[in-house]
C-alpha cells in the first residue's frame, strides 16, 4: 500500500509557462500554425491541440442556477492520420423532466492555399443530433474541407440543470496539448472538493470574485443579490500525449484530470446541507441513502432461508462460509458495477439477479442477521479512479468484510468462483474503504500479500531420434486457480485440450484430466500425456534441447524501452517447474546448463534454476520463479524487464546428449 500511495500521490509543481505571442481568440489562426509541419515536442504526433479553453460557471437563469460549460478548441492536423480528431461527440444527459442542451456551436476549418488562408465553415449538414439511449442524447459534428496541415476550431456551450455534477475535466489527451486553460467558477453557496489525477504536475490557482445575480419574484418584482464566486484555474502547456502501456491496471488513475465534487451547499437563510467532506460525512450520506443504508436493514425477505441454513451453528466463520456460499449459489451478478441498489435487495433476491450492491449488501445484511461482525466495503473498481479524499464519487462497487477474532475476510458474492480473500480482478486492481455506520473508516488494499502458486512438472523420456514422450501435470492455487476457473472453468474438455495444444504447440496430447474446477478452496489440477517431435534437435551424433521443453517462457511481456506508469499484476505468483528427462540408452549427458539464481531488489522477486543428473541417465531440472510484489512502481520497470530477459535466456539453455 505504501508503494501505491507513493505512486498516486500528486506532486504539485508550479509550471513555468512559455508564453508566445499567440492569439487564442476564435478565428485568429495564424499562418505559422498552418505552416507547421510537425509538432516540435513530439514529431510522432499526427495532431495536436494547439489550444483548449474550458470555462465552467453557474448562471442564474429563470430563478435558478444552471451549470454552463463553454468549450473552445483549436486543433492542428499535421497529416491524414490526425483527421480522426476532426470529429467531436457530445453526450447530453436527459432526465425525466429536464435535460442538458448544447448551443452556440460554431466551427471552422482553416487551410492554406498558396499564401492565402481558406476558411470553411461547419454548416448544418455536418452536424448530427440523435437520441443515443434512454438517458443520453448525442450531438456529433465533423469538420469540412480538411487538408494535411489544416487547423480546425470549434466552440460550443453546454447548459445543464444538473448543477451537482461538474464533469471530470481532462487535462491530457491521446494527442499532445500545447496550451490549455481551465476555469471553474462556483458560487459561494456551493462548495466543491477538488481532486486531481495523473503523473503530470497540475497547478491549481484559487481566487474569489464578486458577482451579482438577478431574479424575478413570483409577484413580479426584480431582486438582485451580491455573492462571491470561487475561481479555480489551471493554465498548463506542453502536455505530452497519453499512451497506454500493458499491465497498467486502471488507466484513468494515470491520465491527468481534475474532478469537482459537491461537498456541501449553504444558501442564505438556510442551513448547511452536506454532501460529503469527511469520511464520517461520506459514511453518513451513504448510510442515509435509502438504496444503501435502508437496504442493509431489511431482513424479512431472507429470514426464513437463513434461519434454516444456520440452525444450530455457532461458529461465526462457519456461518460466514455457509451464508457466503448460499448467496453465491443463489445470486447471479448482472455485470453492473454499483454502490447502491437499483431494483432493491428484495426484488434482486426474488429474481436471483442483482448488481454488485444488491448482492453484497444482501450478503452483509444476512451476515449481520446471523450475528457475524460484517460491514460493507466501498470499492473503487478497476474502472474507477481511486479516491484518496473523502468523496463518494470515487466508488462504484461494494463488497463485504467479516471480522472474527484475528481473521479478516473480504467476500464478493457476485463472483461464482469467489472465495474468502480471493476476489475478482475488477476488485483487486482497485482499492476499497471499509465504512462502518458510526463513521469510522479504513483504507483497504486488496492485493494479496502472499504469492499464488503454480506448480508444473514433467516426467518424460527422449529417444535417439529426439522424440520426447511423457506426462505433464499442473497445479494452481489461490488467485491462479481463481483466474483459471474464471477464464476456463466452463469450457468443455475439447476446448481445454485445444487451448493446451495451442499454448504449448503440441500436436499429440492424450489422457487429459482436469480436476478441482468446482472445488473452491482447493487447487485446480491438470494433467496430460504428450509426444514432442519438434522440440529436440539431432545433429550428427548429438541431441540438443532445452530441458524445460515446452514449459519455458519464450517471450518477454515487456518490450518497451521505457515506462511511465506502474506495473499492476494484481497478485504475486510463485511458479515452480520440475522436469525429469530420461535419456536414451547408449547416450551420455555431455553438457547441462549450470545452476543459476538471481533476485529483484527489495525482495520483489527471485529466480532459481537448478540441474542435476541422476544415475547418469536422468536429467532433473527445477526452476522457481517468484514475483512477490503485485504492484511495481515505474522506476523498477527496466529492472523487471531485465529480470524476465534473464529468465527467458536461462530457460533456453541447452542440454547436449552424445552417443557413447
Amino acid at each position, binding site marked *: 500500500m505504501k508503494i501505491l500511495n507513493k505512486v498516486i500521490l500528486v506532486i504539485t509543481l508550479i509550471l513555468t509557462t512559455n508564453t508566445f505571442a499567440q492569439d487564442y481568440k476564435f478565428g485568429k489562426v495564424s499562418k505559422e500554425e498552418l505552416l507547421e509541419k510537425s509538432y516540435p515536442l513530439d514529431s510522432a504526433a499526427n495532431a495536436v491541440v494547439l489550444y483548449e479553453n474550458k470555462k465552467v460557471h453557474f448562471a442564474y437563469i429563470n430563478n435558478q442556477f444552471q451549470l454552463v460549460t463553454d468549450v473552445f478548441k483549436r486543433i492542428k492536423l499535421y497529416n491524414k492520420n490526425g483527421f480522426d480528431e476532426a470529429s467531436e461527440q457530445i453526450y447530453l444527459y436527459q432526465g425525466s423532466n429536464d435535460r442538458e442542451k448544447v448551443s452556440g456551436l460554431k466551427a471552422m476549418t482553416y487551410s492554406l492555399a498558396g499564401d492565402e488562408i481558406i476558411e470553411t465553415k461547419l454548416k448544418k449538414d455536418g452536424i448530427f443530433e440523435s437520441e443515443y439511449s434512454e438517458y443520453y442524447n448525442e450531438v456529433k459534428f465533423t469538420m469540412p474541407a480538411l487538408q494535411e496541415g489544416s487547423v480546425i476550431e470549434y466552440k460550443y456551450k453546454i447548459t445543464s440543470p444538473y448543477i451537482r455534477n461538474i464533469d471530470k475535466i481532462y487535462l491530457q489527451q491521446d494527442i499532445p496539448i500545447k496550451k490549455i486553460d481551465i476555469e471553474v467558477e462556483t458560487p459561494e453557496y456551493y462548495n466543491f472538493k477538488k481532486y486531481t489525477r495523473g503523473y503530470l504536475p497540475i497547478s491549481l490557482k484559487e481566487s474569489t470574485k464578486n458577482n451579482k445575480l438577478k431574479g424575478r419574484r413570483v409577484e413580479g418584482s426584480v431582486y438582485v443579490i451580491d455573492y462571491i464566486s470561487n475561481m479555480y484555474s489551471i493554465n498548463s502547456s506542453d502536455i505530452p500525449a497519453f499512451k497506454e502501456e500493458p499491465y497498467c491496471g486502471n488507466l484513468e488513475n494515470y491520465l491527468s484530470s481534475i474532478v469537482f465534487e459537491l461537498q456541501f451547499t449553504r444558501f442564505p437563510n438556510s442551513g448547511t446541507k452536506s454532501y460529503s467532506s469527511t469520511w464520517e460525512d461520506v459514511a453518513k450520506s451513504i448510510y442515509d441513502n435509502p438504496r444503501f443504508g435502508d437496504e442493509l436493514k431489511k431482513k424479512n425477505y431472507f429470514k426464513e432461508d437463513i434461519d434454516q441454513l444456520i440452525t444450530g451453528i455457532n461458529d461465526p466463520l462457519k456461518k460466514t462460509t455457509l451464508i457466503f456460499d448460499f448467496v453465491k449459489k443463489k445470486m447471479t451478478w448482472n455485470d453492473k458495477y454499483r454502490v447502491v441498489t437499483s431494483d432493491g435487495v428484495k426484488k434482486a433476491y426474488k429474481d436471483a439477479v442483482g448488481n454488485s450492491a444488491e448482492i453484497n449488501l444482501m450478503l452483509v445484511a444476512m451476515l449481520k442477521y446471523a450475528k457475524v461482525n460484517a460491514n460493507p466495503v466501498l470499492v473503487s473498481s478497476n474502472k474507477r479512479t481511486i479516491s484518496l479524499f473523502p468523496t463518494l464519487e470515487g466508488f462504484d462497487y461494494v463488497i463485504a468484510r467479516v471480522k472474527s477474532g484475528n481473521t479478516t475476510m473480504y467476500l464478493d458474492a457476485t463472483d461464482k468462483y469467489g472465495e474468502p480473500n480471493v476476489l475478482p480482478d475488477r476488485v483487486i486492481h482497485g482499492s476499497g474503504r471499509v465504512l462502518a455506520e458510526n463513521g469510522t473508516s479504513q483504507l483497504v488494499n486488496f492485493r494479496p500479500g502472499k504469492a499464488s502458486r503454480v506448480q508444473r512438472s514433467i516426467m518424460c523420456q527422449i529417444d535417439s531420434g529426439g522424440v520426447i514422450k511423457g506426462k505433464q501435470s499442473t497445479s494452481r492455487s489461490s488467485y491462479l486457480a481463481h483466474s483459471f476457473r474464471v477464464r476456463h472453468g466452463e469450457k468443455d474438455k475439447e476446448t481445454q485440450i485445444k487451448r493446451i495444444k495451442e499454448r504449448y*504447440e503440441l500436436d499429440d496430447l492424450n489422457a487429459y484430466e482436469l480436476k478441482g474446477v468446482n472445488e473452491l478452496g482447493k487447487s485446480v489440477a491438470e494433467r496430460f500425456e504428450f509426444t514432442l517431435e519438434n522440440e529436440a534437435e539431432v545433429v550428427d551424433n548429438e541431441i540438443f534441447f532445452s530441458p524445460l521443453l515446452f514449459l519455458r517462457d519464450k517471450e518477454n511481456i515487456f518490450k518497451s524501452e521505457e515506462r511511465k506508469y506502474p506495473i499492476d499484476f494484481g497478485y504475486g505468483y510463485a511458479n515452480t517447474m520440475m522436469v525429469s528427462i530420461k535419456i536414451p540408452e547408449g547416450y551420455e549427458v555431455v553438457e547441462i546448463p549450470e545452476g543459476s539464481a538471481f533476485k529483484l531488489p527489495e525482495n520483489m522477486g527471485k529466480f532459481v534454476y537448478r540441474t542435476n543428473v541422476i544415475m547418469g541417465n536422468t536429467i532433473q531440472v527445477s526452476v522457481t520463479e517468484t514475483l512477490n510484489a503485485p504492484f511495481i512502481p515505474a522506476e523498477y520497470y527496466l529492472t523487471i524487464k531485465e529480470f524476465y530477459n534473464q529468465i527467458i535466456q536461462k530457460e533456453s539453455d541447452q542440454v547436449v546428449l552424445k552417443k557413447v
Partner: protein
Amino acid sequence: MQKTIQLILVAVFLCASIKISAQDNINLQSIIIDSTLTKDANAVVRSEEVLIEINSINSVRVKTKRIVTVLNKFGKGYADSFEWYSPSTKIKKLQATIYDGFGKEVKKYKKKDFSDRSVYDGISLMNDDRMKYFEYTPVDYPYTLVFESEVEKSSSAFIQSWKPVIGYRLSVEESSYKILNPTKIPLRSKETNFGGYAIGVNKLDSEISYSIKGVKAELPEVNSPSFYEIFPKAMLALENFALEGVEGSATDWKSFGKWRYDNLLVGRDQLPEETIQKINKLVSNVNTKEEKVKLIYEYVQNKTRYISIQLGIGGWVPFPASDVDRLGYGDCKALTNYTKALLSTQGIQSYYTVVYGDRNKEDIDFDFASMQGNHIILNVPNEEEDIWLECTNQTLPFNFIGDFTDNRNVLVLKPEGGEIKRTKKYGPEENILHTTATVNLTADKAMNATIRRKSKGLVYNWKYGIQFKTPKDQQLHYKEHWGYINNLEINSIKHGDDKDAIKFTEDLEVSCSSYTKKAGSRLLVAPNLFSCDQSNLPKYENRQTPLVISRGYINTDEYVINIPKEYAIGNLPEKKSIETEFGSYTYELEKINESQIKFKRFLKIIDGTFPKEKYEEYRKFRSEIKKIDKSKIVLKQQ
C-alpha cells in the same frame, strides 16, 4: 372493391397466423433435448418460424417466432434477440419469454420492457437505424428463450434470406420459412448449400417455403471456407420492389443494375466549374488514360477523407459530387461517385461498383440479382486490364485494391445495366516478401544484423501501414513480429514507400545480446533469424470442411552470416526441400569461407481450395517447415 380485398386478405392472414401459433406445442423443457443436438453445441434453435407477408411492394410484414435453448454461457449470444427499426421499418410486436430448464416461465419482456438505442455500426458517424433489445442475466443453464416479433417494412427491395444456421456450435431442431405472396408479384429465389441437408422446399406462385430439421452443431475449423459457403441459404427477391420509397423492377443483374443506376446514381455528378478547371490543369501534361486516372485518384486521396453517414435513402444514394467537393469527406458511395464525376470531366468512363468488402472474400452472387454488397469501389475499363480504385483510402497506391476487395465477383453499374465482373486477383508470384540480411555473430553470444525487406503485392498491403505508426509503436511492432528472439533491440528503422512501383522497403538494424547458445565448446546458432514460420495449425481428428488457402505468396530470404573467429564451421546440413501441391519450400546453408555462411530460404504458398482430406497434408507441410526453420547448427570452438 379495394376494401373487400383487404378484408379477405386480413382473413387469410389471420388463418395463417393462427396456424403458425398452433405449432406451439414444442417442448420447452430443455433438459430433455436429443443428445445429437447438444453435442458440441452452446445453444439449440428449437424452432424458428419466419413468415413473410408481401402485401404490396410498399408493405412487407415479417413475423418471427424463435425458440432457442441456451446450454451454457457461451451460447448466450444466440438468444440475444433484438429488432432493428428505422423510419421505413416499424416494429409492431415484440415479446420475449424466458423459461428455465424444466419449462417453467421465469421472465417475460413485453415491448415496453425492451431497451432502445441507436445502432452503432462501428463505422458510421451517423445512421438512423435504431434497435430494441433486452438484457437478460441467465441465472442457470439451460434456459429457453421464446422470442416473437412482427415488423412492418415499407421497403421490399430486401427480402430477408433464409439462413437456418447462423453460427458454429449451434444446432437446429427445426426451422421453417414461408413467404406469402398473395398478389403474385413475381418472386425469384436461389438456394445455395442445400446439398447434404434434408430440406423441404415448396414453391408456388403465391407462396414459397423452406423447412429443415435436426441440423447438428458444427465446430469452426481453420483455413475453411467462409461461413456463407458452408451452410444452407435461400435468397429471395421480388421482381417489382421499393427501396425507401424508390420503386423498381428487375429480373437479372442487367435490369437490376439499370434500375440502380437510373434511380440511385445518375445525375449526382455535377461539379463546380472551378473544380473542373483545376482537373483540366492537373491532367494537362499527361497523355495516357492511366496517367490521368492516377492523377485524379491521387487528387481525391489528397482532398477527401472517409466519413460514413447513412440516413434514409442516403444509405443507398451517394451524396452529390458537389457536396464532397465542398466538404472534403464522404462515405464509400460519395467518394466513389465523386471520383467518377472527376474522371468524366476528362471524358474517362468509369463505373460505380458494388462489392462485399472484407478480407474474407465474399462474392456478389453471379446470377441472382438482389440488393447485395456492403461497399462501393470504382471500375475503370482499360485496354489491357481494368483499373480498380478504392476511393475511401487515402494511403493506398493507385490501382491497388488490396485484400479488402480483391479476386471476387462484383456488380458493375453501367448506364445500360448491371454486369458481374471479377476484381483483380493477386497471385502467389505477385505477393512477394524478399528479405536480405548481413548478420554478425560474436563469441559472447551477441548478434547484430542489417536487414532489408522488400514487399510487393498483397504483402505490401499487409506491411505498408507500419510507416504510419509512432517510432515507439514501430519498435514494438518489430519486437513482436520477431517475438521468438529474446531481448531483440531495434536500433534503426527506415521505410521506403514507392507507391508508383507498389513496393515497400524496410531497412532495419537490429541486435541482441544473447542470440546464440553456448553448450560447452559448442555454439548453437539458428541461421534462420528472421523468417521462422509462426503458424500453429491444429490437428483435427475428423476434418469436416475443405482446406482453403485464400491467398498465395512467396517469401525469399538470403543472409550472409559472419561467425565469430573463435569458432569453426563444421559440417553443414544438406539442403532441404519440400514439394507439395500447396507450395514448395527450400532451406539451404552454404559455406562461403571459413568465417561466413550463406543462408537461403524459399517458401511459396499457392492459393486454392483442396478437399478436406488434404488438410492434414498441409498441416504436416507447415509443421515440417516450422521445425526446419528453427533448426540450429553447431559451431565448434577452435
